[in-house]
């Protein structure tokens, strides 16, 4: 049963961090950063299921994030839908869209899959830029506040607890999935597609499944982001944003759910701390990605775990 310990310890550690943070966060600016960390972390937990566990790459997940954001913005802003209904409609629509593109796109492997998903993300981004009548185009659009039956999360603190709870749920579900027949099937597809299929794993089915799951999680996070920030632009769906998500996953550690949290935290906080670097943000991400690949291919958390294991065998 030693197997269960890291899982439970991880969730408890996350809960502890979430519980302690409000005591040490000095003001709204810090809350803001932490909330963005949480939203990005939800995307990364999903994306890591696809990349780290399933072994498939996507350079277009910001497209799904952006779609979720715009579904919420347009349906609540232009059509006065309740936010929850808009969020759910966005998630279902992105689910259907990702399901449709998954079959042809996931036939591709390696570089080709990277290019295919990149193309998909670019198409979404272009569509959001071009459909000025619906999206407001490159200037972006405002998003009404999140409200459930008249109640609105008005303060940063309330948003903090909402995002924290949703992140906990995402992590719990992801950990469930990983340590389950579905998770094993996914990892086996990563390890060897032929061996997986000979063992009875329907490789295509599991690839599509995890692509859709990760897309829906991105859409969901995009909706939250839209309501939280109150204003969105097509940059949310940009290629660079997709690269940011992938960099978070890779830096934190592929096939490490808690690594995704660490990756999201570092790469969300870093640009805020180093505002001087603003013009070089892309450069910094590129350098971090390269540095991780060269010096620490497994990513931060798995490398640290290895170190700890070696220190006391």
């Amino acid at each position, binding site marked *: 049963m030693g197997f269960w310990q890291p899982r439970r310890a991880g969730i408890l550690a996350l809960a502890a961090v979430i519980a302690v943070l409000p005591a040490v966060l000095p003001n709204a600016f810090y809350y803001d950063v932490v909330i963005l960390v949480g939203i990005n972390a939800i995307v990364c937990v999903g994306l890591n299921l696809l990349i780290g566990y399933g072994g498939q790459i996507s350079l277009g997940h910001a497209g799904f994030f952006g779609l979720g954001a715009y579904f919420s913005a347009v349906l609540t802003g232009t059509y006065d839908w309740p936010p929850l209904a808009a969020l759910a409609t966005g998630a279902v629509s992105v689910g259907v869209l990702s399901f449709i593109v998954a079959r042809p796109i996931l036939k591709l492997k390696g570089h080709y899959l990277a290019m295919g998903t990149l193309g998909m993300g670019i198409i979404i981004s272009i569509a959001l830029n071009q459909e000025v009548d619906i999206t407001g185009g490159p200037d972006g659009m405002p998003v009404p506040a999140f409200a459930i039956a008249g109640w609105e999360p008005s303060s940063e603190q309330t948003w903090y607890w909402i995002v924290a709870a949703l992140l906990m749920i995402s992590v719990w579900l992801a950990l469930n999935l990983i340590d389950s027949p579905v998770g094993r099937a996914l990892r086996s597809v990563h390890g060897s597609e032929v061996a997986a299929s*000979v063992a009875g794993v329907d490789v295509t089915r599991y690839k599509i499944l995890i692509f859709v799951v990760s897309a829906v999680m991105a859409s969901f996070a995009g909706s939250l982001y839209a309501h939280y920030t109150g204003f969105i632009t097509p940059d949310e769906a940009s290629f660079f944003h997709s690269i940011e998500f992938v960099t978070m996953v890779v830096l934190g550690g592929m096939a490490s759910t808690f690594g995704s949290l660490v990756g999201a935290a570092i790469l969300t906080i870093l640009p805020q701390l180093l505002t001087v670097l603003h013009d070089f943000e892309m450069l910094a991400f590129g350098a971090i990605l390269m540095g991780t690949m060269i010096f620490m291919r497994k990513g931060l958390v798995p490398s640290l775990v290895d170190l700890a294991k070696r220190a006391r065998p």
Partner: protein
Amino acid sequence: MTLLRVEDLHKTFGGVGAIQDLTFSINPGTIHSIIGPNGAGKTTLFNLITGLYEPTRGRIHFNDADITGQPPHVLARHGLSRTFQNLQIFLNMSAMDNVMVGYHLRCDGRFLPSLFRFPSVVRKDAEYRERAAALMAFVGLEDYVAADASAMPYGALKRLEIARALAVQPKMLLLDEPAAGLNPSETLAIDGLIQKVAGRGVTVVLVEHDMRLVWAVSDHILVLDHGRKLAEGTGPEVRSNPDVVAAYLGEGGRDR
């Protein structure tokens, strides 16, 4: 009664026939060897039988069902399983989880039960983990029950593939060069393991270059050459077949 029947099978790659005019059948409960020089088409035949390749022509029947053109994961359900000439281990997983993937069809692979960790899923996983440990002991891997696959030596990985293939609970197990790369004592142990597997009622189809192993374990031998059947029969029949001696054993097969 036959378990596997291959009829007039052809497979061409860019006009070159890797398998041609091949017809044979395999009875249940035997250890059936397929031998032939490098490039004879043995692995191609395995890939055709297990659905990794689609035949250019011909039919494959397994257990009275026409399985031609079915994908591998469907054939696993029919009771076909195999190992690979070039190891295909899930190196990103623990040894135990490699075997657990073999139990995939017995576990609940649906999304929602896994996502919400239904007690039934957890219970079944625990049950199959015990079985996986027993299976690992059966193939001689009891020391690796808690190991990561990536930390295991080559010889152990060969056995791990066999354990994973057995977890599929196959009627027929195809072994593609299980002794390749092993030292003589490891080969001897694999010999014993193959007989133990056959003793469990699994029909074994063996592709192997180690002739001593082939002669020792085979009830029946099929000789391939350039994708065609050269000879077929019991060990002594095949050994005394002049075509076989000329085409295969004459070219260095004898000294192996």
